[in-house]
């Protein structure tokens, strides 16, 4: 299949791949052909010199430096500053306004930092007894448990369907399904607010086909079977609306990433599995899933983080009349604490705890996802 070339290493590499039943990737070959071979002696001299230079040791650092400089200045420093703030109380009683935030009916005003007083772990102790914090944590957990699995399964199913060779109009489907991410945050939350009104479009359609109207935004446990009522409590429907809105928006985004992952699975693996007599499920279980693991893991971790970040959607949905205790997320609560109550120290402490929770979750997911590598 492959012709002899002037490059012994590449020949060997191709020979090994052929023996393993895997075809040589032509993309790599052409990439290699663009690297012009130098004369052997010159190469030997250059490499002998390069091995002695401290420069070669520095190569990976040089690749990393541009990233790391910006990373340190704009991410690491603010994070450390937040941790620093979490051990202090902050009294925002200065006269000069630092900045305004004006989100529709909600306005935040941050005044100049007037006093910082060290209080040790006091902020963290307060956290333990804060019912509102626990409520926000519970809400976020509920949304996480319903929304993330729903979205991943949906995204994966869509990616698999769109990766099938027989499906036509792929580009059209892909673009349409991914289009919701293009919808502007503020605009789409407003649109959902309109659609989900008690007499909004969704309920109108529901009634047309004979379904009962659902109190999407105003909550209540109406329409739920008895035993579920006490478990899920009031505000079930606003949470579901939130889950629906977020799923609508981000499923296509996850689908695109999963699709890119699927397309990087070598076709030869499927051919080999077919020769071995694998059926549809076995091909999915033993070829697709293992090959897709890094991408899948990426999607799960980023979706989890995304859920913990929810802010604008619950804010706007609760503007529509949803009970705040049902849809208040952690970030929302922290934001209120920081900008409405001006308790920057306490807000920072909550931020640190929130980041801790998300970090632990992500590490667990990465461990579980990475371990079954075999």
């Amino acid at each position, binding site marked *: 299949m492959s012709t002899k070339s002037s490059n012994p290493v*590449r020949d060997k590499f191709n020979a090994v791949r052929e023996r393993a039943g895997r075809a040589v990737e032509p993309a790599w070959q052409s990439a290699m052909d663009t690297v012009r071979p130098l004369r052997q002696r010159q190469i030997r001299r250059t490499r002998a010199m390069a091995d002695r230079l401290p420069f070669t040791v520095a190569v990976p650092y040089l690749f*990393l430096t541009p990233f790391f400089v910006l990373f340190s200045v704009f991410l690491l420093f603010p*994070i450390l500053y937040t941790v620093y703030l979490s051990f202090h109380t902050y009294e925002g009683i200065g006269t000069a306004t630092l900045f305004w935030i004006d*989100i529709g009916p909600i306005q935040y005003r941050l005044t100049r930092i007037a006093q910082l007083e060290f209080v040790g772990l006091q902020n963290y102790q307060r956290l333990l007894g804060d019912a509102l914090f626990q409520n926000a944590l519970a809400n976020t957990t509920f949304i996480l448990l319903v929304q993330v699995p729903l979205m991943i399964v949906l995204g994966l199913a869509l990616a698999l369907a769109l990766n099938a060779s027989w499906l036509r109009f792929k580009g059209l489907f892909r673009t349409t399904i991914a289009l919701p991410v293009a919808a502007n945050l503020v605009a789409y939350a407003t649109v959902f607010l309109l659609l989900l009104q008690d007499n909004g479009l969704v309920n109108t359609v529901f009634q047309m086909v004979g379904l009962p109207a659902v109190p999407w935004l105003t909550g209540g446990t109406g329409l739920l079977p008895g035993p579920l009522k006490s478990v899920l409590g009031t505000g079930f429907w606003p949470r579901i609306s939130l889950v629906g809105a977020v799923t609508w928006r981000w499923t296509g985004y996850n689908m695109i990433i999963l699709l890119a992952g699927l397309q990087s699975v070598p076709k030869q693996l499927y051919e080999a599995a077919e020769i071995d007599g694998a059926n549809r499920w076995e091909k999915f279980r033993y070829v697709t899933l293992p090959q897709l693991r890094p991408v899948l893991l990426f999607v799960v971790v980023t979706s989890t983080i995304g859920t913990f970040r929810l802010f604008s959607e619950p804010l706007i949905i609760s503007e529509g009349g949803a009970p705040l205790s049902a849809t208040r997320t952690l970030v929302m609560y922290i934001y209120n604490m920081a900008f409405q109550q001006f308790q920057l120290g306490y807000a920072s402490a909550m931020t640190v705890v929130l980041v801790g929770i998300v970090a632990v979750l992500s590490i667990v997911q990465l461990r579980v996802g990475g371990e079954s590598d075999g």
Partner: protein
Amino acid sequence: MGSVTRDEAGWRFLGYSFVLLVTLLMIVPIYWIVVASTLPEQAFLSAGTDVRLLPGSNFLANLDALQARESVDFVQSIWNSVFIAVVYTLLSLVLCSMGGFAFAKYEFKFKEPIFYSILATLTLPIQLLVIPLFLLVSQMGLSNSYWAIILPWAANPLGIFLMRQNMKQIPDALLESARIDGATEFQLYYRIALPTMKSSLAALAIVLFLFQWNLFLFPLVVLEQGKYTIPVAINELIGAQRVYYDQIMVAAALSIIPLFLVFLFLQRHFVSGILAGSVKE
């Protein structure tokens, strides 16, 4: 085209129905935005009594109302958003792919600690960095400039994670043989890693573009009139006394167009990325 077995036909039917159903669900709210943008406000605010599902003729009037606003120059804000998102995406692609290459293909001191400290910041809800970032950016004299929005997340932890995962798939033997052919380390990155990672880069570009396109709180804090991005501009339409739904719908309908173009453009690269991997000699 060979004959299709019964089982296969069933799967195809299922696949088409599923994709069509989801597509429909996804398109309805967007269709609604477009329709609403062509209707007078009263016609779509209460859908309960009479549902209007067909476009009206009020689009230009709504657009005029939007354009007439003193506080927002919406056309300018589209340009601002596009410029910021494009520059941000390009810059971040370079930073992330270089960093990802280092993590995937080299051994060096403190590799693990550095990588995990970057990874850890992935877990950070960025809204919560608004205060320290604002202080930092204004100290640097960058407030109300495009750079205030471009630089802070150019070193995108998400991007470096994705790049590292994907670049691990490049075989070491390939890089080694290129080294023997006399390639410099930078050429390995530029001539081998980047071309083979085309589809991953396209996927990451979408991720980055969207991330920047959707940033809301930080631009709201940092930018002033004239530099507003689309989300901030639309937010201006939600007044304390009144929400200008008709104008929001026009703005939302217009703001979808640039994203649509990005998808169309990058999809071609997806396809070429696939073809490069599957063409046989």
